[in-house]
């Protein structure tokens, strides 16, 4: 043992001892709470007398704002109504052929012939299924909200870039804007701006500007110092340095911000349509889904997916095009393409009066896919009903219920086929303790703690865990992970949930989110690991992942509801189908970018492919994989709210109920609750990453 080892040993031992005693205390406290809760009712449910009427405060505040500032907001509404009307009218007035030409030209410029062809075919699909007008209504909103969000986001980004203090202030605002569920915005906007398409616009701008701010800051900051210094040494003034050096050098990242903003805007436009009143494509999906006309909602959902893919590829293609500057070429070389497109569009507009076919898509060219689709779906469901139900029931009975209400209540003759006997419990307790003891003997204290806690949670159930026990476990965990700051933050977050009376619903959300995140993470990283080893698999999965990511998550509800009806299980599936993608991508990226030398060294030592994967690649890719977990949590919680549409009973549902009942306070508190859960989970992940880095650098603990 070298001297350094000797010196390092005592503190590690002390730390481990602390870990052991601290957790033992927390676990004993939790056990005491569990046993005492039958006699002490306040342990079970947080006493109502200690709750604060936050909901009423919010409502009163909102009433006050409406009473005093309504006129301001209504003026804004008026100001926006006209330009929105113009854009909408223009899109409707343009002959379909002209619009298709413009979009194809943009696609061609951004990515080339293949994307142009894809665009043309997609738009023809929209025409054929007869949803052109609805699609144009949605696009009109996107076309006007994207420039607003981009401008606002860019301005804020530049401001945040130029002042560290502003950036510090901006960050939590952006976090909240991105994590508070979209539905929670809709109601206050509805109350302030009045019923109408402006709600969709405002909500979409609010939801879409944060990625622009973040990417602008990132892009401006990332410019290598060599480039900035060379600009300074060329004698640039401050303005020149910004506009001629920093901005163009960071342009790619900023354009990626435009891409993300566009996608967020489309997503929000679709969600906003659920308040109705706009005959757009999102409404088409939702209303048909409510009537259980799944064929029609699939047809309309595909329109949304295609629109999303076109917008994504075109804006992303623009970002990718680095340096095709044509500064010293002629006017026609520079603008010729667009002049030709403009001329062709004008020709089409003129020709429309001669050849009406160019203007309006003929009725008899439309095809009704909805009916045959409906029949096919019916057939499928009837044929596979036993199988589908078996899957659904076993997941609900054996996984979801125990985690929700605990083994003590979930095991019943109706679900598991037998009633829970004391000896069952005894076996469970003994096996958990044995597992923990084995982990302890192997020196894996953290694993032992996790085993005991997991056993406890699984036996009692997340929603039936006494609240002081949950608070103690989470706050102590926060303290171990991130010190006083994270512990305080966690305590404050949980206090908010308690005093606003959202605790029970929040635990339901956490239950669903935990399951969904675990499942998404396991599935995503496993598939990602396979994809990293197998090029063919990676190739097949890439377009699938891209599609699932670019689609407004709302669309993912259609197939799951179709197959499994409404309920928690359906929500779980919908969340997984959206949230597994980041886990997949980060795992594959992490494994594929493991240092080549480490892999070669291990191969030369004689590692088998499996050893190479488990002992070299995975540990090295761990930070990336954890980043994937972080993203999966964010995606999962975002989708949780949208999944409320298919019947959950958690905070997400509360947001939705608040919206439909016009109760601002109720919806908003639930929305903040969701945001708090998301942000806290994010901080835990970041704390883990920080610990991991310091451990690697300093070798502590």
């Amino acid at each position, binding site marked *: 043992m070298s001297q350094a080892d000797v010196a390092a040993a005592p503190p590690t031992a002390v730390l481990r001892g602390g870990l052991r005693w601290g957790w033992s205390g927390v676990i004993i406290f939790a056990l005491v709470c569990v046993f005492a809760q039958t006699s002490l009712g306040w342990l079970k449910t947080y006493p109502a007398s200690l709750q604060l009427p936050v909901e009423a405060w919010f409502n009163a505040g909102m009433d006050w704002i409406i009473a005093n500032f309504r006129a301001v907001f209504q003026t804004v509404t008026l100001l926006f109504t006209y330009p929105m009307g113009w854009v909408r009218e223009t899109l409707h007035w343009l002959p379909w052929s002209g619009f298709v030409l413009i979009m194809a030209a943009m696609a061609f410029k951004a990515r080339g012939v293949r994307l142009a062809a894809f665009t043309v075919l997609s738009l023809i699909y929209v025409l054929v299924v007869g949803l052109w007008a609805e699609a144009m209504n949605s696009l009109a909103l996107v076309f006007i909200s994207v420039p607003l969000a981009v401008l606002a986001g860019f301005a804020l980004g530049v401001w945040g870039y130029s002042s560290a203090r502003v950036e510090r202030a901006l960050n939590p605002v952006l976090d909240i804007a991105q994590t508070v569920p979209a539905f929670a915005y809709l109601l206050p906007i509805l109350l302030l701006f009045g019923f109408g398409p402006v709600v969709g616009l405002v909500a979409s701008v609010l939801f879409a500007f944060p990625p622009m701010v973040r990417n602008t800051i990132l892009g401006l900051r990332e410019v290598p110092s060599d480039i900035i*210094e*060379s600009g300074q*040494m*060329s*004698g640039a*003034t401050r303005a020149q340095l910004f506009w*001629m*050096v920093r901005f163009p050098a960071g342009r790619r990242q900023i354009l990626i911000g435009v891409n993300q903003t566009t996608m967020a805007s489309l997503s929000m436009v679709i969600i906003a349509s659920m308040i109705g009143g706009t005959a757009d494509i999102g409404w088409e999906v939702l209303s048909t889904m409510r009537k259980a006309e799944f064929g029609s909602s699939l047809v309309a959902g595909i329109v949304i997916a295609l629109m999303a893919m076109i917008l994504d590829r075109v804006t992303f293609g623009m970002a990718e095009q680095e340096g095709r*500057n044509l500064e010293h070429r002629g006017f026609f070389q520079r603008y010729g393409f667009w002049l030709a497109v403009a001329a062709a569009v004008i020709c089409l507009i003129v020709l429309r009066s001669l050849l009406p076919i160019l203007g309006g898509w003929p009725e008899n060219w439309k095809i009704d896919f909805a009916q045959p689709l409906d029949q096919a779906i019916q057939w499928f469901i009837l044929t596979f009903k036993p199988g589908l139900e078996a899957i659904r029931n076993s997941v609900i009975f054996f996984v979801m219920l125990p985690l929700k209400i605990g083994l003590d209540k979930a095991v019943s003759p109706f679900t598991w086929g037998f009633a829970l006997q004391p000896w069952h419990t005894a076996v469970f307790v003994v096996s958990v303790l044995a597992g923990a003891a084995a982990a302890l003997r192997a020196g894996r204290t953290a694993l032992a703690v996790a085993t005991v806690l997991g056993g406890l949670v699984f036996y009692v159930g997340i929603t039936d865990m006494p609240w002081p026990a949950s608070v103690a476990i989470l706050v102590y965990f926060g303290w171990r992970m991130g010190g006083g700051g994270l512990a305080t933050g966690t305590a404050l977050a949980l206090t908010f949930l308690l005093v606003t009376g959202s605790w029970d619903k929040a635990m339901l959300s956490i239950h669903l989110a935990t399951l969904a995140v675990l499942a998404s993470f396991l599935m995503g990283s496993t598939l990602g690991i396979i994809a990293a080893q197998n090029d063919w698999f990676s190739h097949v999965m890439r377009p699938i992942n891209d599609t699932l990511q670019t689609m407004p998550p709302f669309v993912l509800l259609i197939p799951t509801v179709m197959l499994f009806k409404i309920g928690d299980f359906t929500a779980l599936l919908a969340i997984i189908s959206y949230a597994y993608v980041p886990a997949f991508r980060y795992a594959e990226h992490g494994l594929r970018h493991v240092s080549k030398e480490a892999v070669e060294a291990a191969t030369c030592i004689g590692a088998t492919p499996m050893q190479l994967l488990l002992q070299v690649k995975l540990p090295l890719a761990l930070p990336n994989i954890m980043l994937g977990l972080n993203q999966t949590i964010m995606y999962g919680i975002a989708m949780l709210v949208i999944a409320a549409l298919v019947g959950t009973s958690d905070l997400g549902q509360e947001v939705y109920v608040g919206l439909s009942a016009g109760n601002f306070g109720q919806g908003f508190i639930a929305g903040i609750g969701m945001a708090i859960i998301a942000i806290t989970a994010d901080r835990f992940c970041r704390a883990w990453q920080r610990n991991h880095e310091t451990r690697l650098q300093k070798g502590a603990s």
Partner: protein
Amino acid sequence: MIDEPNAMKADAVKLSCRNLWKVYGSKPDYYFDTSGYSIDVDGLAGRMRKEDHVPAAIDVSFDVHVGEIFVIMGLSGSGKSTVVRCLSRLVDASYGEVLLDGENLLEKSPKELIEVRRHKMGMVFQNFGLLPHLTVMENVAFPLKLQGKRLQEQRENAERVIELVGLQGREDAFPGQLSGGQQQRVGIARSLVVEPDIWFLDEPFSALDPLIRHQMQDEFLRIQRVLRKSIVFITHDFLEALRIADRMAIMRDGKIVQIGTPTDLILNPADEYVARFTSEVPRIRLLTTAACAVPATGDESAMPQVPADGLAENLIGKLAEHPEGLSVRDNNGADRGIVTPASLVKALAALGQGDTHVAS
């Protein structure tokens, strides 16, 4: 001296760096707010370090003469990049003076500074610092564009320097399409397009692979023979410094350890640190013909004549053909003795023992 204007011009100081300090930390000014800095330099630096400040440049002073290549050599973290950034004011020095043609750069207002940079300074960066969205032509013309020069003038000047660095034909390429060596040629062209008086090169060839680096050094020396700029050249490569320096400074931990010609440094290293660099250098590279000459003992009229200031290394082939010896002549044709195989070996042996009397 005064009645010799030409000599005066060649020796004139272009850039003078006086007692330059750069201190990082929460309150660097605190150490210089009285006039009392002239206390013991090492003591002050030590105190800064103890008080959580980092003195990156410590009391750096040197002069760069007109037309001279002045190299600052040091390992990473020695403060050489900080010094050149203080000279160009990319970093504001904590204390000291930087005199360009007698004017203190550190006192210039931002506006004046921009003027100085636009007309008097050029700088080349280790990682090139090219704008990825501009072509070679646009990158080179960029400083002129910032000055608002007409497009025609921009192009003419840019073409001139592009030709100088040998990139004609690649004007419309983007930096991403060029090799590292070509990118640095663009960087060099851009720094020369405003015809600067003083030329800063911050490790210009460090990012290139060895063969290209050697080629670029030759290219650089060729350009310098044409332009005769006053140059501050930063490098961490001792051999590179030897190849190109007229005079060089060696830096360590923020301080200049020694200033001198490459030969001075090798033959009279100021301390162990410098000696460790110089011990790596094959001595024969520095041995001049004059240094291994011995007085003629017989008739040397039949021997081939060689110049006294040439390198002894180049004589080996000739000595093999003429073992009797070579006649050494200085620039004026005066006889400086002869070189024989024996005298060459003797001189080399003396060098190996650190005997320094052979230096010229």
